[in-house]
């Protein structure tokens, strides 16, 4: 089914986010991107973990999974493995992705599964009342914070072997929508770190300095996004400005092109294989 209206991608559930939460705009952008990409709700699975941002699955009119904290990516990969024809989107918070889920990113991104990961980065654990997340880093005050380098989400995503890495911002819906479209279109593992500020808990990702909250668009004409080193370099520039746009893209075999079979979904047609296998088990 093709839907022409972003509103039709919304379930009837009212959003439960605080007014002003960046995630509200991310949801809007997603509905627009789904519309423009002509994605079929019945053929889409939106997989999240736990956190404020992970509530997004309740609000998008598609199949969805709202799993334990930090496990969204591997659950999504399971969905995709079982049915490669589905559009599988992973979404959730910076805590989900870079704290509890960090290992899965390292494990799975470089296998280049055909998934799109939307990470809503608010520099904190919103749901548990705003503790600094890995992307908050040094700037984060509070008794529980430790003086250390902040995690650089874009650099990490590039280093994991993801084949499409972008940064967006809930403040720049137009670009964000476009980035989502591109990510959905990309064959392989695409990830967008989305600056999506928390409206109430007073923390920020370190990549969004409080004195320069506005983001700067990357100029695709001058940034060689196919060059991994250049992308890393751009991601590590520290000039107090938040860059949004596509940092890196690469064409590489996807996980499914590596698995040399397609799952037969109708099952039970493998009696012949089974008899053959059992023949091999005769003493």
């Amino acid at each position, binding site marked *: 089914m093709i839907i022409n209206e972003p509103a039709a991608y919304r379930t009837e559930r009212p959003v439960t986010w605080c007014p002003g939460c960046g995630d509200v705009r991310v949801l809007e952008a997603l509905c627009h991107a789904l519309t423009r990409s002509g994605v079929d709700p*019945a053929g889409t699975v939106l997989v999240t973990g736990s956190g404020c941002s992970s509530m997004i699955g309740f609000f998008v009119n*598609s199949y*969805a999974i709202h799993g334990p904290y930090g496990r969204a990516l*591997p*659950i999504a990969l*399971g969905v995709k493995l*079982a049915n490669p024809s589905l559009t599988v989107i992973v979404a959730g918070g910076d805590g989900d992705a870079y704290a509890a889920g960090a290992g899965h990113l390292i494990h799975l991104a470089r296998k280049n599964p055909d998934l799109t990961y939307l990470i809503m980065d608010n520099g904190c654990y919103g749901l548990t009342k705003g503790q600094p997340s890995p992307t908050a880093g040094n700037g984060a005050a509070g008794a529980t914070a430790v003086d250390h380098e902040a995690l650089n989400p874009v650099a990490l995503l590039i280093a994991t072997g993801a084949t499409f890495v972008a940064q967006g911002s809930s403040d720049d819906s137009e670009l964000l929508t476009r980035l989502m479209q591109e990510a959905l279109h990309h064959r392989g593992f695409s990830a967008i770190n989305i600056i999506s500020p928390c409206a109430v808990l007073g923390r920020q990702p370190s990549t969004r300095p409080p004195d320069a909250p506005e983001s700067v668009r990357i100029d695709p004409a001058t940034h060689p996004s196919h060059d991994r080193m250049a992308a890393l370099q751009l991601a590590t520039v520290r000039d107090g400005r938040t860059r949004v746009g596509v940092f890196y893209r690469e064409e590489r075999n996807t996980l499914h092109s590596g698995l040399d079979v397609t799952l037969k979904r109708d*099952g039970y047609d493998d009696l012949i294989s089974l008899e053959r296998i059992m023949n091999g*088990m005769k003493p």
Partner: protein
Amino acid sequence: MPPFLQTVPDRADLLIRIAGEGGQGIMTVGEILSRAVARSGLHVLADSTFASDIKGGDALFQLRVSPHPILSQGDRVDILVALNENGYRSNETGLAPGCMVIYDDGMALKESGEAIFYPVPMGRISGELGSPVSKNMIALGVLARLLSISADPLRQVIGQSLAAKGASVVQMNVKAFDEGLAYGQDHVVKRDPHLLPVGAGENNQLLLSGNEAIGLGAMMAGCRVYPYCPITPATTIGDWLSDHLPGAGGQVIMTDDAIESAALAIGASYAGAKAMTGTSGPGLDVMQELIGFAGMAELPVVIVDVQRGGPSQGLATKHEQSDLFSAALGGHGDSPRIVVAAADVNDCVGLTIEAFNLAERYQVPVIVLSDASLSRRRQTIPRPDLAHVRRVGRTPHEPSESSYLRYRLTADGISPMSVPGQPGGEYIATGVEHTESGSPTDLPRDHETMTKKRYKKLSAVEEGLPPVEREGAARAEIGFISWGTTQGAVREAMQRFRQIGLPAAALYPKLLWPLPVKALETFAASVNKVIVVEANKQGQLAMLIRAQTKIRPGLIHLYTGVPISPWEIFGREDF
């Protein structure tokens, strides 16, 4: 009364042990012997043990052969082939009177006891052959001679088993075998009564290990996705499925940790595929959160736990039945799950199929318990008849006018389940408490209702399964209850009880959680004293039985890392 006088050993039932050290080809020769013997239509149960150390160490292959189905690994050795000194010493105490001992005469072995000894100059012969590693085949030749095993089928299996290593290896091995045979013929005078029993001829058996059987069962059930993280002793399920499932249209994927493999399986199941993962205790620990999620979100998934000695890293290659608590009760909250336990290789096929059926039917995680010894044990089973395999799918969501309620309250607690791709079936599977539509709720009534729904499903499980097998007199003094591989030892002990006329009975449950309360109570009512036999410290099944029935069982429990033997049940005097 001394043990062996109480019962008459079955002369046609032979237990053969080949012992030595890693690198001596113990497994190879054992495997060849097993296959040859099984081809003659005899039943075979082969068991191999290796030290958990990385290199070398003791190696043992044990083969039990009988014209009748074999119930357990057995407990008295009829034939010992010792390729080094330790191979003799560490097995000396288990020898039956009249045991045949074939050994390398280069060993410093003091012949003693009631065994019958056949020293063989394996060192010399293998030296003459220019192949010091061929002692195993020389011993096989002597053994074939002494037991009157036909040589041709053995030569054939040697050829087939070693084909991958090239023609010259095959040739050398056949030659060594022939030398052993010739030595036996010319220089050994048979002084023992053992002979290989006569088999039924080609009888359509399969010879496979417990872990291979789990793989086979999964495929028969329609498993389509098997993600796994290697862990001893579960790894070989993945090895086997890697070889076979992709060719049949499924997918096997190795993940970088065990949590991930459970997550993949659950995701795959959501997408409509039957999915399984396999692990051992440490992996089960880290999967608890995801198992709880599957229970809450009502997603079918099968998790095989091949138990090893615990806790923690424990004894990675050793037998134990100590994960029942964590399988049944290990998740936080009231976490619904079903647990079944396989007793033998045949069960590994059948119960794995059953596990998928239960998972799909009740939309719940199902844990299949196996154990290290069963995982490795190679056993003959009747070839499964694919035409008679019962496969259950999940209750489908039929398109309708009204909007879809994924967690609709129904009489039996089972709600129709849509599959991604199906228009109108869109829903969210969530780990937070939810209403019928899947929306989050924390209202008291909702939580109560939904908890009841999840447990109502489980309350029907026992009735939906075939009756639990019972053995023995209709009324008996003692009634044994056991689970997993220990059931084999109990079955064999039962045979001996019958011989000495002791009126015993036994119950063999496969479903352990929810506990088959009715079957247990009925059984207990038919005996004077119930005794639970299991291989763990806490008496885990006994505790669950006490917790959920009126039965106050006694307990025989061993936790040595070695499977409980029939004798350890039969030989007890403290019933």
